[in-house]
């Protein structure tokens, strides 16, 4: 398992181009055969655009083996249901797994 700590990219993550840039920056460190988990710890805000782009790139790269660690981050919790509904692909699967996992923890 590989863990990406989003705080490496800043505490406020805005815009689709920046999400793509973050993926490009971290890709050389990733093994596409190993599942990835994303840690939102110490991040204040992730916008839906940034998250959508980052997850799209990441799940395309490793065939959907991406999971989101449970989080209290309000911006992430707000974006996930819309992303889960809007997408019908690896991103939706990743998001819906995260929502279910967090519900199970409640």
């Amino acid at each position: 398992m590989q863990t990406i700590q989003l705080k490496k990219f800043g505490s406020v993550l805005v815009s689709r181009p920046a999400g793509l840039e973050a993926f490009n920056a971290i890709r050389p460190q990733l093994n596409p055969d190993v599942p990835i988990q994303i840690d939102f710890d110490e991040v204040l805000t992730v916008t839906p655009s940034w998250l959508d782009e980052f997850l799209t790139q990441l799940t395309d790269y490793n065939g959907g083996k991406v999971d989101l660690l449970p989080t209290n981050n309000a911006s992430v919790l707000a974006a996930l249901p819309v992303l889960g509904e809007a997408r019908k692909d690896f991103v939706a699967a990743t998001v819906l797994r995260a929502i279910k996992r967090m519900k199970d923890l409640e």
Partner: protein
Amino acid sequence: MNAGKVRIGEAAKILNVSVQTLRNWEKSGKLRAERSGGKHRYYALRDLNSFALDLQMLGLAWATSAMPPALPSEYYCERPDRFTSRVAKMGIELQKTGHLSEELASLLTLVAAEIGDNSFAHNVGNWPDVPGIFYAYDIAKRVIVLADRGRGVKATLQQVRPNLTTDVDALRVAFTEIVSGRDPEKRGNGLKVVRNVVESKEIGLLFRSGIGLVNIPTGPGLMHIKMADGNVRGTYVVILF
């Protein structure tokens, strides 16, 4: 003390400036104070509220005037990177206030960032006259204002929905449907998230484009879309909390 009036220290807190700044503003005539018994300064809350409206008036002028007005540099983001760094700074300032929850700081930053970023994403290469956005906030006054002189929501969405004919319909689509002005790119979720957040939290939203107007009350409450009195060139947005 008379009702509706506050002393200079309280006025400074309301406007998020120092007492000395208020004294300077009084000298320069920027913000007048009254004197009681010739000694203490008093400020009418009504005057302070009018003063607080300045950001909104500036933003509205940017979004509506035929010629772009001169803006203080701190309110103008010509390029997305400047906006991104300023909105990140706002997020940190919101966190540090001590009287706003982490949740509200996170969500206000999301709302402002998503809306401002949309202005750039939807107008890149197509700004009708001046590129960039007006972006100003005052945490003490609990207001964030964004405005652009772009093409507006209707013109953007007409690229993928040619049958859209009114600004009101365009705003309804933008805030309720998963659709992108840059189809076939997989995008167009941001304003839906914004709406969900604003409707469910203590955040108010005024969003105007063309002659369309979206209003969501500051307390939890549902979105209303209607025609506005005047025309906005691109978008004009006020976020209250």
